[in-house]
């Protein structure tokens, strides 16, 4: 299917950006223009029940007037709308108190090249997705199971320009396949995503989910308590994802990070090292931040010791540090955050983790995770879609789903084994590169009815 906005080349996006800059009478002006096409095929009960596509354009203008700044956005490209969006940004900027932390716009920058656009993904058609989904539904039929899930693909391109001469451009594609396989009293799940759709093996993912559903039939109820727990990369992602904002300079400055007073001190186990690295081969995202600062690779945690934070320009000035290229679009009150976390992994396979466990729990997927205590980083949530009991080194069947109340800090101090880090996809966090983990004394506090 033709991409309706594919005709909006970088040159055309840049033409809109240049026009905005010309129209603006503000002292300084920054403009972001983006175009995207997204499509998603959704299936349930072994049939496609929703199938959607979206083509959209976004024009976002930030004006700076007398030490004040504000943003206005539109998706209309006619002359009058472009004039209006500029005027809105200027009017909003004028009508507020001066911002003492506001810095002049950046000038021209140099960016490291990243390659995250794949034609095979951009050119995926509804028929391609429907055919793959049909194969998965037939597989479920064959196993007398029920399949539900999504198969999504899309592309986006964006440019950033400002009146100080900064020019940046980025394009990417994305694809995702997620599948839940249901039986009468059990279920299994698998999910993967990639900029390159050819890397998604939809049938392998469906087989994996089907095996989890079959393996967890007639789940037993076992008591809540502290168990040795093997977490899939998706489950690890959804837990450690709650840490990302704690590494923002602003969060520490505001004393609402769990790292307040803990930087440079041993917090996690020796086997925990975390980077933020937008250039990692398994990562995605633009090589610049919301102000156009080039993203840097930052060592956040080294052998269990939080070492560094990330900073926007304004936060860096306030905290006497250097900007790291992690700022959000201005104006905002949150500052910055690392968006490309990469954990160093280990070399243990999940089979080995199971083999060395006398009694424990194997978790496929976590769900509805919320923060209970922001400083001790206690999170609550549920297991879902394939929770297994391990006895004497082997998986002996499914168990009813647990609620957990677990400190992530404690969890990362109790990691006995790590597998290789992979690009994981979950539900509560953006994608990161994380390993599967075997964790001591994971705290399951209650059991549900299924």
């Amino acid at each position, binding site marked *: 299917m033709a991409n309706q906005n594919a005709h909006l080349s970088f040159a055309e996006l840049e033409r809109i950006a240049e026009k905005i800059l010309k129209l603006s009478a503000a002292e300084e002006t920054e403009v972001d223009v983006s175009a995207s096409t997204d499509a998603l095929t959704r299936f349930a009960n072994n*049939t496609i029940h929703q199938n959607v596509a979206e083509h959209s354009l976004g024009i976002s203008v930030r004006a700076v007037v007398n030490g004040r700044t504000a943003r206005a956005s539109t998706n209309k490209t006619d002359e009058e709308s472009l004039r209006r969006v500029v005027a809105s940004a200027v009017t909003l900027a004028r009508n507020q108190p001066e911002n003492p932390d506001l810095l002049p716009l950046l000038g021209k920058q140099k960016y490291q090249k990243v390659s995250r656009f794949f034609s095979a993904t951009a050119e995926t058609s509804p028929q391609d997705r429907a055919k793959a989904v049909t194969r998965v539904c037939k597989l479920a039929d064959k196993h007398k199971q029920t399949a539900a899930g999504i198969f999504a693909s899309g592309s986006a391109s964006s440019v950033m320009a400002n009146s100080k001469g900064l020019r940046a451009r980025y394009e990417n594609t994305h694809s995702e396949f997620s599948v839940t396989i249901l039986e009468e009293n059990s279920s299994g799940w698998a999910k993967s995503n990639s900029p390159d759709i050819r890397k998604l093996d939809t049938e392998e993912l469906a087989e994996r989910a089907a095996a989890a559903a079959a393996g967890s039939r007639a789940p037993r109820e076992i008591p809540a308590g502290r168990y040795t727990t093997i977490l899939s990369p998706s489950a690890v992602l959804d837990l450690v994802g709650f840490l990302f904002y704690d590494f923002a300079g602003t969060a520490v400055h505001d004393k609402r990070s769990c790292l307040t007073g803990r930087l440079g001190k041993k917090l996690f186990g020796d086997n925990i090292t975390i980077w933020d690295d937008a250039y990692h081969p398994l990562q995605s995202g633009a090589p610049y931040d919301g102000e156009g600062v080039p993203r840097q690779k930052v060592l956040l945690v080294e052998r269990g010791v939080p070492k560094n934070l990330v900073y926007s320009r304004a936060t860096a000035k306030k905290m006497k540090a250097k900007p790291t290229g992690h700022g959000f679009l201005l104006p905002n009150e949150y500052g910055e955050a690392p968006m490309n976390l990469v954990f160093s992994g280990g070399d243990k396979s999940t089979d080995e983790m199971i083999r060395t466990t006398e009694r424990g729990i194997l978790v496929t997927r976590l769900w509805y995770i919320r923060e209970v205590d922001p400083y001790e980083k206690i999170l609550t949530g549920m297991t879902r879609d394939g929770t297994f009991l391990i006895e004497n080194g082997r998986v002996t069947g499914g168990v009813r789903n647990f609620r957990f*109340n677990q400190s992530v800090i404690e969890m990362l101090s109790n990691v006995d084994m790590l597998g290789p880090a992979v690009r994981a996809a979950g539900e509560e966090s953006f994608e990161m590169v994380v390993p599967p983990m075997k964790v001591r004394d994971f705290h399951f506090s209650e059991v549900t009815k299924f």
Partner: protein
Amino acid sequence: MMQDLANAAIETAKRRGASYADVRVMDVRHRDISTKNGQVGTLAEAESLGIGIRVIAGGAWGFSSTDRLTSEGVQACAAEAVAIAKASALAKRENVSLAPEPTHVDTWQNPFLKDPFRIPVEQQIDLLLAADKEMRRVKGVTVAEGSMSFRRIEQLFASSAGSSIHQIKMQSGAGIVATSFEGTEIQKRSYPNSFGGQHMLRGYELIEEMDLVGNAGRIAEQCVALHSAAQCPEGQQSIILDSSQLGLQIHESVGHPIELDRVLGMEANFAGMSFLTTEKLRKLKYGSDIVNVVADARLEHGPGLGTFAYDDEGVPAQCTPIITNGLFTGYLSSRETASSIGEKRSGGTMRCESWNRLPMIRMTNISINPGTWKYEDLIADTDDAILMETNRSWSIDDKRYHFQFSTEIGWEIKGGKRGRMIKNPSYSGITTEFWNSCDAICSRNYWTLWGTPNCGKGQPQQVMGTGHGASPARFRNIKVGVAFAK
């Protein structure tokens, strides 16, 4: 202009082979303001205009959307919707069937007194900064925050059956939060509610009625005092929930499980399913005899975030009894799901976040009817309980059985009197056991229609506002304190 775009889309879809088409042209305007520690944080306005076209072709669904509102852009979008439907038909098991609905031609706008977009932005910022200043007067407050958000949504629904419905919705909301770090503890207090405050289908008059400045000092003092308050005990005991926390309890443990698309497995991969399987309708004892819950999208229920005249597939707003004297009596439905369980008509709950999203079953205003108790009498009647106020965290399993909530603050109730402050209050339970333990609900005088502006559902995910009317209520023999248990 909206009607011309809609007509062009429908004509193209029909010409390409659609047996049914409906269209939403939406023009959405936002204003968002936030402040933190005496400075403006976010200050932004946005507008978005586009068209979403949903069709049935070959017996299956297709949807496409675009903001390229030229004749070619709209026709290409309609043609793509039909092509997508034909691709969907590759995996079809049966033809889509819709419950019948008469055609409607109408216009509607929610009433409001003051257009928030006509209030000068500096006046709105001044109000937030005044509340901010009051919070920071209290020693120990480390972060003071305030926010306001306004939405004007103009939309036209048109269908190949002949409906044409023009609606304008004006939505306003605001809230303030004080945060305090001390020792190894971060505490916070919010007003009038957490996670963005209170939001309704009203104008700027809502913000003025909140008295943000007048309440700022009180919540800031409570926030700091929480550090030296007693920890919530662990065990089984009575709890009293304030109306905002009860509103979220309704949202999670009644509103989501009654969504018929979840029940029928359509959300199994993401949002999950529901314990409320269809054989339980009109048979399950959901709650105690005093529990009555409705799904009411009509304006007479109040100007909630789930209030409208017609839903996004052209069905008029309705009031559906969900729990009647404790008995489970109704689902939230669409034309397709109503048809699939043999109901004669949709309950009118299909809504979409914007022009680029497919309508799906969403909560309207899911509210518990007021009871008979005066609040003072309820406290006086309670020997031993914890009163819990203002949500802090919420979590529930994917079939909506087991939940755990914590609130920002609690108060010990002993011998019919409110006593010392409790920090880190939490409670957990199983949905039906919880609602069957309800033995007192306060009267209409204590009932508030809360707005939850951030309900996520669907793939691609859509964020929707929902309404929840509730008054304080008491529940017996509830597990408390488990969130912080070692």
